[in-house]
């Protein structure tokens, strides 16, 4: 099937649409306002602007914040829990943590009210032995009670169900028979992994999202079909892979970080196409600066994430570190006379002072406006007609200039210096935490504001160059189109290597591979290749910290060849040595979990199709004064998208495009590579 592939990313402010014409390889982008509370209107509007006949579309891939927002705003469904006797409070007790280290304030409301957490007699022990068989009539009574209490979804949470799902499976079968909808989640189905709080939390949050997310995706799919769409509809997962829409309706928790994950996938692809396998991405939004690291072409996955205090989701997610330094972050001077940025933010509404929508405290964007780095006459996004430079300057004077005894420009420069320093700090820390030297990496800014700060990141972190993608404002939508289809599986094994039942391990591997392949088979999209990978979480006995051990397993005609104990021990030693630099003499090796991933590689399009064609203008379209360090520089302004491949622009310069401003500071230059990316680097490095 040929036609159009479409990526749609719904963000807080804008809905981005990326359309790839598979026939001629051309691409186009659209940006429309996000609609609230129902995002589907903006979604369909964005597609409609690009395509009249929805039957021409072969694939729609969607990166969604519906799940993220429902979690952050606590707008999921009323749900119930049926759990093991004695354990009804696990969700509320968490892992005995607290919201903030200092101050001891704050409480915690779990997503399930204590009245809706009901216990039933049943107990499985850690080795899988059933100590008390499940009382199914108690389960049915509990389910009836939860229905009567208004629960729309239910989660079944039994102790040690990863070790032996028998009790939990019997309970969930009984509940599914009587529950009026499909919203029944069982902990051994969602996450068959040891650690009850993490498993229960992930399962309960899945139930919490299910009515909302599956309703939203159902509405979208219905509307697409009504418009004649007959292709595949897929959703981006937090792990950076895509899944079919029916899988997303069953496992909505896997969409918890869907939107940002797509952006990182695109960044990785753009960077490696351009020849940079090691890249640190920085997505600057209204309230935050999100940093992610890609090493040797691979993005880092973290096994779990806290969406908010006490709301733990344990599914593999692309690791994104967030600090509160976005365009809307507020600059303020504390009682000790020190200038701070954030964490308080004006966000995008009311937004910076210059927006004139009711915020009077200066933000990072206001500093950029006052210094001429943002064009006040042509605000990005098209919602506003012009920015109020005077108001921004007054706010900076009042809140920063006066207390620090600085004039407006010095105060604005100060705001940027402190903000840049914090952003650079996040980049350094993300690298060091993973054992990398940030100087080996390229920096890729995306999102609306990141490219204004690229030069500062080079100077602060000592990075050699930045790569600004041709369409930094629609990176996530682009990521939707190129993401692979991927399913992750986990199973707790919990045994010494010496007592491992290899056949049983192979059976779990086979089951994961079969389930993953079935999902690929069911997808109506083509794959260039299929990959199955296995990892074991292992440690020496006595250690709780595990090491991920990749296991190379041969497959014949889809059948797993059973790995041997020797192979596993050797793989462990290699991985352990690489992580800690030494092995433990006489250490006893343990296997905790099996993790499997089944990936269907989707065809990649050539990014060169996005490159500028022919010979556009290399002449500036205008010039304006921009303030750098301590003086104004007359700065040429270019139409970025018109610049032909190979153009080199020396700083100071500004490259403008509809949704992004790229700043090239004095001493730096911007080079248009063959994909239309702008490579920013020091002038002396140019070849």
């Amino acid at each position, binding site marked *: 099937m040929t036609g159009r592939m479409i990526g749609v990313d719904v963000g807080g402010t804008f809905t981005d649409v990326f359309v790839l014409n598979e026939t001629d390889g051309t691409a186009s982008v659209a940006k429309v306002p996000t609609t609230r509370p129902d995002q589907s209107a903006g979604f369909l509007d964005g597609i409609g602007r690009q395509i009249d006949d929805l039957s021409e579309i072969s694939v729609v891939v969607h990166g969604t914040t519906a799940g993220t927002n429902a979690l952050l705003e606590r707008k999921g469904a009323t749900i119930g829990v049926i759990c093991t006797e004695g354990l009804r*409070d696990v969700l509320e*007790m968490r892992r*005995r943590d607290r*919201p903030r280290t200092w101050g001891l*304030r704050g*409480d915690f409301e779990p997503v399930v009210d204590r009245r809706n957490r009901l216990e039933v007699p049943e107990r499985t022990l850690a080795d899988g032995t059933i100590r008390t068989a499940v009382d199914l009539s108690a389960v049915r009574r509990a389910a009836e009670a939860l229905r009567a209490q208004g629960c729309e979804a239910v989660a079944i949470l039994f102790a040690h169900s990863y070790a032996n799902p028998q009790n939990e499976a019997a309970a969930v079968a009984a509940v599914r028979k009587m529950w009026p909808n499909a919203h029944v989640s069982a902990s051994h189905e969602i996450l068959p992994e040891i650690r009850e709080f993490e498993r229960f939390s992930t399962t309960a949050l899945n139930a919490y999202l299910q009515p909302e997310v599956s309703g939203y995706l159902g509405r979208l799919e219905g509307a697409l079909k009504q418009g004649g769409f007959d292709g595949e509809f897929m959703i981006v997962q937090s792990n950076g892979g895509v899944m079919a829409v029916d899988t997303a309706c069953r496992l909505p928790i896997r969409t918890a970080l869907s939107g940002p994950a797509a952006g990182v996938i695109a960044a990785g692809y753009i960077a490696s196409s351009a020849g940079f396998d090691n890249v640190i991405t920085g997505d600057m939004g209204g309230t935050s600066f999100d940093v992610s690291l890609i090493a040797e072409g691979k993005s880092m996955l973290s096994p779990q994430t806290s969406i908010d205090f006490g709301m733990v989701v344990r599914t593999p997610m692309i690791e994104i570190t967030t600090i509160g330094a976005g365009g809307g972050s507020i600059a303020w001077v504390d009682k000790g006379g020190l200038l701070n940025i954030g964490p308080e933010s004006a966000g995008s509404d009311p937004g910076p002072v210059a927006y004139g929508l009711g915020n009077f405290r200066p933000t990072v964007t206001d500093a950029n406006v006052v210094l001429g780095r943002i064009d006040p006459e042509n605000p990005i996004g098209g919602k506003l007609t012009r920015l109020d430079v005077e108001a921004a300057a007054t706010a900076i004077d009042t809140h920063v200039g006066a207390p620090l005894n600085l004039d407006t420009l010095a105060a604005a420069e*100060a705001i940027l210096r402190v903000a840049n320093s914090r952003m650079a700090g996040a980049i350094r*820390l993300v690298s060091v935490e993973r054992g990398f030297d940030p100087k080996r990496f390229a920096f890729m800014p995306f999102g609306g504001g990141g490219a204004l700060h690229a030069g500062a990141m080079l100077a602060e972190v000592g990075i050699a160059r930045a790569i600004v993608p041709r369409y930094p404002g629609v990176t996530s939508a682009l990521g939707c189109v190129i993401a692979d289809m991927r399913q992750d599986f986990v199973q707790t094994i919990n045994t010494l290597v010496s007592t491992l039942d290899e056949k049983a391990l192979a059976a779990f591997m086979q089951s994961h591979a079969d389930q993953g392949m079935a999902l690929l088979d069911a997808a109506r999209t083509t794959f260039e290749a299929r990959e199955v990978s296995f990892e074991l979480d292992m440690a020496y006995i*006595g250690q709780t910290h595990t090491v991920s051990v990749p296991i190379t397993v041969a497959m014949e005609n889809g059948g797993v060849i059973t790995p041997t104990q020797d192979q596993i021990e050797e793989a462990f030693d290699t991985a352990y040595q690489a992580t*800690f630099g030494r092995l433990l003499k006489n250490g006893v090796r343990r296997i905790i979990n099996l993790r499997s991933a089944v990936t269907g590689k989707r065809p990649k399009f050539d990014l060169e199709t996005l490159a500028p064609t022919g010979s556009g203008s290399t002449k500036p379209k205008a010039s304006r004064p921009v303030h750098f360090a301590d003086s104004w520089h007359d700065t040429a302004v270019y139409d970025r998208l018109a610049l032909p491949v190979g153009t080199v622009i020396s700083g100071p310069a500004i490259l403008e495009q509809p949704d992004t401003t790229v700043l090239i500071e004095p001493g730096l230059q911007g080079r248009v590579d063959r994909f239309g990316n702008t490579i920013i680097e020091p002038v002396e490095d140019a070849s």
Partner: protein
Amino acid sequence: MSDIDPITLSVLAGRMEQIADEMDATLFRAAFNPIIAEAHDASHGLYHAQTGDTLVQGKSGLPIFVGVMAFAVQAVIEKAAADGDLADGDIYIFNDAHIGGTHLSDMRLVRPYYRDGELFCYLASVGHWHDVGGAVPGNYNPAATDVFQEAFILPPVKLARAGEVNQDIIDILLRNTRLPQSAMGDLNGQLGALDLGIKRMDELLDEYGAETVAAALEALGHRAEQLMRSELQDLPDGRWEAEDFLDNDGIVDEPLKIKVALEIKADRMTLDFTGSARQCAGPVNIALPTTVATAYVAIKHVFPALPANAGVMRPIDVIVPEGSLLSAKFPAPTGGYTETILRMIDVVFSAFAKAAPDRVVANAYGTINALSIAGKRSNGQPWVMFSFYGGGHGGSIETDGLNHGNAPISTATIPPMEILEAAYPVMFRTWALRPDSAGAGMHRGGLGAVYEIEVLEENGAEAFLFGERGRFAPKGIADGGNGTMNIFSYEQDDGWKHPPLASKMRGIILRQGQAVRLETPGGGGYGAARDRAPDAVALDVARGMVSEGEADKTYGTDWRGVTS
């Protein structure tokens, strides 16, 4: 000292905090033992070249270390002055708690940082090692009557001389731990963190110049002092006292008083612990550095925005009476220091509440409840399940207290029940919140927990508990009610029993199928119970967190009129 512009100061403040953060990150990643790697029981920072005062400290380290590390550096400064041989590339190591504070499990490394041949500052790293010898694995010996029964003691000695590591010291260390591989891994991690700190300091000084950075350090101290003074100015002048008690020291059954007088005069404050109990026989003594550090922890909880910088303490006097259990002398045992410092924090909060009730939270559960259950499996292999348990936090002007939180001196999380059951032959019959445990109030305390643990092993097991708050409940503030007390019970052939010393006991013999039960305290309440909204009371009752009878008794019957 040259002047420094405020913007460079902001930038340098962030850069130096980050050096400490990166040192934390380096150790967490490299450490072998989960107490450091997962519970982050470690800390790093920059310290003053002459005074040892804390200049900058990492954000991720354990709260108690924020105050205590300066003492470790001061001990090294004194040692180096006495020996007169400090050199670039030296690294000192020690764990002596009477000199450096906390307990013997915390291994401290201190390294001078030289610039152009001159001492610029010190870098230090502390981490909780898994085992440093002594009578009990893990070094928590409730029966210790001196430090020699607690662990191997290392005074400040040179691990490296001018860059040359002394392998003899490492050999001695590794021979004195039950877990040499773990110790070696942690030591390497700490050395790596110090190396990274030196490298980052070099880069920073290359970029900004030693003079500017020194000026920044000076200015940050002034700024911290100024912040503290301005906070104190906002509070009323006066003198407020508070006292509370430890149940006993685990050996002699007598309550031990902890008393504080808090005095604020303009922009200065005194914390006077005169009137606290004398040094005792058991391991609830603490050394002077620990006491001063704890005062700092309490203050930082009251003013959470203050930086981790010694300047904060300049307007504050801490008075600790000679001979008290808050300034215990070598070789008094200090292994149970956690219980004593938690009570110190409680009395400081209670005193502050009288001065400015809105600035503090009511008392948290106030005990770490170190519970050990151990035995031998049928194949002869020994097993020890050792863990700390949670309880309720205090209510505040903003909200009810947190249910089942961690101790104010720590940020460590509890291991999952399933991990414990998979590792040891036990089963938790209950792992739940404890209804009716919260102190009443406009904002009630958080709930404590109930853990009931059955022994599955056919050979039975032996248990010990080191807890507190068995006889004195966590206090409410601003007319809020007290939380409930800690209750420990254990099952015997003729029924459930309680320990004679309330919260401490060793040698409890359990048969297969018998259990221990720990009911931990809830937090104290904030504000008068009569001011609690009836619908909040009704919700607590509906959720089973407060019983109907308790609600009527404490809050009156208005809640019964609420229709939900």
